[in-house]
């Protein structure tokens, strides 16, 4: 998460959108806010309260990171964590190059 936050801060002006989705159906609501504050997260955190998103995206491990290009197509999926900062950087720069 800290790596994702660093990259979000760096690239958000160039059009990067980060959506973090909490699997609220498997988690407790009261732990979300302290987690956001402890990690100084500024990107939106969405709540998947009924597990619909995790079912649609076939999430079998946490965290799972989806890299989605400007056409809405999933470019890559990384299962598990912690995900390395360099890998996020490579994926993001590849995707941002596709932007008009």
């Amino acid at each position: 998460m800290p790596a994702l936050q660093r990259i979000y801060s760096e690239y958000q002006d160039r059009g990067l959108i980060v959506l973090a989705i909490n699997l609220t159906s498997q988690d407790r609501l009261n732990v979300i806010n302290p987690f956001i504050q402890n990690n100084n997260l500024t990107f939106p955190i969405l709540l998947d309260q009924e597990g619909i998103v995790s079912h649609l995206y076939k999430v079998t491990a946490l965290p799972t990171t989806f890299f989605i290009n400007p056409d809405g197509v999933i470019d890559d999926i990384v299962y598990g964590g912690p995900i390395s900062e360099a890998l996020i950087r490579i994926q993001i720069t590849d995707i941002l190059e596709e932007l008009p």
Partner: protein
Amino acid sequence: MFPVLNVGSVSIQLPALLLLIGIYLGLVLAEKNAPRAGHDSKHLNSVVLLMALVGIIGSRLSFIAQHFAAFQASPTSIFSLNIDLLDPVGGFIFILISLLIYVQKNNLKFRDILDLLTPLFAVFFVFLGLSQLASGSAYGLPTTLPWGIYVWGSYRHPTQVYQAVAAVAIVLAVYFWSRQGVQNGILFLRFAALTSSVYLFIDAFRSNCPTIFGTIHLNQLAALLLMAIALFLLERKERTV
């Protein structure tokens, strides 16, 4: 597709685990076969350890070289355990160079080392197919055949299963030949010819393949080239034996 195995609170990357199992079982078979096929197995563990170390370090270095800016911005990622930060082609080149050095330093013949490793390669290809099935990569074209599997939004040819089944047949052939004492590089060349012919055939059913001149699959072209070289060398060797 089953990329992650959850054991309690621990998530295991199943594709990577299957590859490790493949290497281990391949090594066991290669060790068993070595004396029967007239090879000295004392080099086997050293060569496999060398290949593993050089393969990991080499594939990471090659990946860093290709994405230097990303690692310059995040230097700690150099030591990341993430297997997505490896370049298999670069790793293969490093392994090949290190094997050539090892062979020369120990006064061995390269063809003998290849024969020694052939059972390992053969078993590895079985598990490579299973690993690709688990990760959902190397998937097939859409099909209406009854054995199609549902991957990435449609029923597709289970190309990973085709590969694993064909690779099992190749393992049996390699086992049979090595028990017969086939050596002098012939064992490896037969394996290479068979495996490349399998890839040549199965790749016709694969989706999302890199192409050249619009329609020709790059993997098929590489497999055809490898098969031609293997058959040519095999024919020359079989004639001289």
